[in-house]
């Protein structure tokens, strides 16, 4: 139970306030001088008094000693419900989840088990802080803009007194300058004035002459598709084989120049890649890789330049990023695939539309890759609104959320040339758009045939053609289809005219035949002209009793008369 402090004691402390003439001495400095100090060595304490520790758990900022039995009741403890917890700072507490133990504290444990002695303490720590030798602090130029830790306004240094500075604040008028310890003053670049260790931040600046003389050739690893050194983004709508194509890309680079990506793009040199895959699972990923390796004529186990990790690192987790960087360094990876981007955002996923928040997160990834010497390739989804419309050419603006389109130095975007047909699940007609900040840019019609498990098994067969050629071929086919359709219609119309003409062996005027055929005025002339050109209809002179002059009529030629 905590004792209530009477008002007089509070006032007694308040009497030490400088305004009240307090002497600044510490009346209680000698209190409890015989108390053992330092961090309690819990295992030593327990061992001496026969309290058995079943298990020791170490968490982020505390250590938990789970006891075999509760010190207050030997029947408790079999389920690990009794423990002594020691925070990293040294504070020690007792916990037991049984109702009868409610209210028992570490103080009670000590009263019951045994007195805490000096020998139970770990490293003895001084009661008061040892005297410190002031470091020689760096001088501060007069006029430097500084800000104290507890204020938001900036002032200029007017004098450097060694360990402190006098500061004149803007707008303080005729008020005297205030003196602050250097430990409480920050410069505009965020450096504390007493900070002698931190190196000032360095940026690289190049003159135009230096820049012009530098050896900065484009290191193209897959010809006109992927170069080393520029962040890449692979995007696409739903189920357009983003992962499969990226896997084949990494696999191709892992094999080297003996193969081509999509059987078309030359692999200039071998490059090691690590693929962080957060979607799909190992089973389909291995299946895809096996089919691709078999298509390339190599055994998957012999590919030594491609590595797969079945998780993606979280960009907001330092531990994840350090682990990912370590993997990239260990494997000497030149490319790091992150599939998909959205699983890496962690707690920042709620800010996915905020380009500043995403910029910070993606910036962490770029830094990690730069430190590991790898080029990141991010796989990302398109906006839902993009849909899967036919021949809807993909664009960087289709990438969902913020940040990815902005950081892309090179990209490969996938759309559908034809909607996905569930009756032909192994056939994909896609549009592949490739581009980069270095100027290369191309658009391709990509057909991937994968087969189905029920119909001869699955395989991998990409076929790629320039989009313009595919479009021409497509247009030519459509033209032929249209012509065939027109010809069929013409034949039908000719047949109808012939049927009518056959009913009048002696011949009838064109107006009569047209009326009887029922053909519209836009369909009749072409069919009529073609029949005349072919000589199937021949003109005849018709005479009727009430006509003085003969008039023109038509009939089928003799051989065509049914």
């Amino acid at each position: 139970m905590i004792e209530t402090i009477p008002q007089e004691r509070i006032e007694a402390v308040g009497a030490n306030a400088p305004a009240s003439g307090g002497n600044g001495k510490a009346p209680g400095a000698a209190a409890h001088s015989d108390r053992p100090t330092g961090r309690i060595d819990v295992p030593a304490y327990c061992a001496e008094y026969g309290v058995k520790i079943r298990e020791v758990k170490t968490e982020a900022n505390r250590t938990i000693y789970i006891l075999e039995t509760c010190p207050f009741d030997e029947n408790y403890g079999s389920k690990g419900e009794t423990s002594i917890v020691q925070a990293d700072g040294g504070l020690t507490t007792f916990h037991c989840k049984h109702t009868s133990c409610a209210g028992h504290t570490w103080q009670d444990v000590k009263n019951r088990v045994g007195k805490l002695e000096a020998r139970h303490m770990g490293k003895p720590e001084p009661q008061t802080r040892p005297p410190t030798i002031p470091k020689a602090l760096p001088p501060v130029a007069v006029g430097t803009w500084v800000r104290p830790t507890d204020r938001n306004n900036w002032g200029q240094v007017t004098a450097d007194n060694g360990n402190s500075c006098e500061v004149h604040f803007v707008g303080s008028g005729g008020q005297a300058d205030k003196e602050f310890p250097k430990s409480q003053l920050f410069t505009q670049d965020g450096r504390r004035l007493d900070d002698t260790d931190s190196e000032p931040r360095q940026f690289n600046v190049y003159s135009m002459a230096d820049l012009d003389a530098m050896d900065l050739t484009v290191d193209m690893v897959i010809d006109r598709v992927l170069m080393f050194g520029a962040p890449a983004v692979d995007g696409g709508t739903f189920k357009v084989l983003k992962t499969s194509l990226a896997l084949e890309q990494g696999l191709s680079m892992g094999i080297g120049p003996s193969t081509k990506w999509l059987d078309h793009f030359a692999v200039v040199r071998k490059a090691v890649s690590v693929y962080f895959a957060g979607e799909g699972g190992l089973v389909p990923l291995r299946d895809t890789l096996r089919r691709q390796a078999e298509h390339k004529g190599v055994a998957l186990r012999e590919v030594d330049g491609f590595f797969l990790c079945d998780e993606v690192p979280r960009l907001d987790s330092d531990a994840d990023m350090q682990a990912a960087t370590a993997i990239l360094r260990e494997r000497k990876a030149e490319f790091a695939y992150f599939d998909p981007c959205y699983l890496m955002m962690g707690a920042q996923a709620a800010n996915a539309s905020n380009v500043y928040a995403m910029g910070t997160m993606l910036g962490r990834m770029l830094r990690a890759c730069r430190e590991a010497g790898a080029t990141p390739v991010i796989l990302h989804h398109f906006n839902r609104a993009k849909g899967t419309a036919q021949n809807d050419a993909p664009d960087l603006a289709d990438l969902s959320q913020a940040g990815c389109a902005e950081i892309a130095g090179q990209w490969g975007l996938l759309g559908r040339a034809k909607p996905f047909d569930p009756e032909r699940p192994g056939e994909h007609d896609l549009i592949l758009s490739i581009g980069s900040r270095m100027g290369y840019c191309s658009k391709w019609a990509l057909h991937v045939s994968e087969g189905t498990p029920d119909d001869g098994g699955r395989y991998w067969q990409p076929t790629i053609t320039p989009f313009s050629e595919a479009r021409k071929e497509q247009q030519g086919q459509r033209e032929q289809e249209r012509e065939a359709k027109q010809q069929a219609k013409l034949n039908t119309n000719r047949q109808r005219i012939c049927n009518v003409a056959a009913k009048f062996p002696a011949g009838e005027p064109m107006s009569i035949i047209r009326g009887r055929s029922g053909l519209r005025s836009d369909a009749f002339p072409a069919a009529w002209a073609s029949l005349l050109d072919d000589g199937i209809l021949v003109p005849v002179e018709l005479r009727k009793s009430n006509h003085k002059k003969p008039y023109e009529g038509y009939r089928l030629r003799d051989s065509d008369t049914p």
Partner: protein
Amino acid sequence: MTTPATTTTARPDAQAVKAAAGKRVADQLQARQDRLAEYTQCLRLLHPDPADVFEVRFLNVPNNRWKPIQASGYFDGHHLDAAAIAIETYSEDRKAAGCYVTLNARNPALLARAHNRVVDNPAATTTDAEIIRRQWLFVDIDPIRPSGIAANDAEVKAAEDLLEVVVERLRGFSFSYPLIANSGNGRYALYKIDLKNNDESTAMLRRFYAGLRAILPTPDPGGPSADIDTGVYNAARIARIGGTWNRKGDSTPDRPHRRCQYFDPGDSLD
């Protein structure tokens, strides 16, 4: 021409996978139960009277919009479970930067502002004038560091050291051992008091903090050091809730986010 690929799939042991998943879920549920118990215990420590009405407040709760929000709710001692669930939601799920509770007794009518529930962007939170009595003397020890970031281990150690000094010095004034808390970056020492909330009490506490600072050693300018906050004399002062996260700035390896912890009276320094 292609040939069909034959693949053999090594199926993982389904029983082992299920058992591992089950253990993971059980561990998560147990951890959640432990946290709820810790919140409840903290609230009960600070407000042992079930008739007490207190406010829980959540600062800098991330929001889909551009600016983090604030959330607040009022609870009485009969609804500690509801308060604990709300705290769990805001601390663990909504990643609030700080979860706080008021320390002093307030007008019970305030419960009608948000009756045993939490609302986002509340129209009003507790003001000094709404406090009836002062129940806690709050000593807040913070490491000296730039604002908006978590403390490093050395700075936390400096706060820990200063806490010991504070307790020892106040023992010299016949103060009992306080309720101790680790606020994540610094330390709290909470002494039980019972004062009316008026100008005299406020002035007395201002003098107390000034006097306390005068009897403490001067912060060391050459290394990590800590100091007491002398501006915590206002009646509507809030303190962090035990078991919740203190998320100041970004969590980095040397300046990680830490949980707040309260220690039972008697568990304290010795």
